[in-house]
């Protein structure tokens, strides 16, 4: 059972994640509208394109904060283990895909898919790791 403190940490994590998700959707809408209507060029275009990446960076910081604030060692270990498996799987897939792109000329994978791919693997790893501790 999770402690009261752990629950408040979880609550804070979910609240922050929700804010970041809203910011992400907003920044995506702002970016695509600005590119469609203002047709920026050069540095302005790069900065606009970077806009939706900022909430994603914030989401990564929020995960780091969650890990440092989480006092329940079991929950933290569970999360860290899942993240390590998740990143291992992501690096494996990106390396294989990269090699296939380079040598076998398969369809290139967009780099911004790396983050959601990692999230999927972390989620799957969490299910497996959690089951192992039951």
């Amino acid at each position: 059972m999770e402690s009261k403190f752990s629950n408040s940490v979880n609550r804070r994590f979910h609240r922050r994640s929700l804010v970041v998700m809203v910011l992400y959707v907003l920044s995506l809408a702002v970016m695509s509208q600005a590119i469609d209507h203002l047709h920026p060029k050069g540095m302005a275009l790069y900065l606009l394109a970077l806009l939706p990446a900022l909430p994603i960076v914030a989401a990564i910081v929020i995960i780091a904060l969650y890990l440092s604030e989480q006092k329940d060692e079991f929950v933290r270990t569970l999360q860290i283990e899942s993240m390590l498996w998740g990143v291992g799987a992501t690096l494996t897939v990106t390396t294989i895909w990269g090699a296939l792109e380079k040598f076998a000329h398969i369809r290139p994978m967009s780099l911004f898919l790396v983050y959601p791919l990692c999230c999927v693997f972390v989620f799957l790893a969490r299910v497996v790791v959690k089951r192992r501790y039951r």
Partner: protein
Amino acid sequence: MFCSIKNPTERRYVIRMWIMAALCVLFSLVAALVFRHSRPHGILSYLVAVLPALPIMGALIYTGVYLAEEKDEFQRNLLVQSLLGGTGGILAVTTAWGYMEDFARAPHLDLVWVYPLFWLFAGISYGLVRARYR
């Protein structure tokens, strides 16, 4: 070279990682030569393209083995924090670059760079975490 490492688990890990790095270079050369000289097609091209990714998978597995074998909790914690730092760094960079690629037509970053970039960030992270504990 490896004798200076007193911890046997760490020494084993470093030796295994060097072997995997050497295999990665060797397999990359083999794959590049095969594609340059015999231009394989179909399933054979996929198999040859995947060849350099195998030692990388081996390195990831050995990192997991090291984390499971390492009895020194401080050392394990140091590596875990560095890996998490590396994860955050690589996810932030790939997301930012991905958006710039898709919306600002930045040059395509090959997926094969994700793995070395991950270790670069993990290395920087390792230095920072170590400095914090001094």
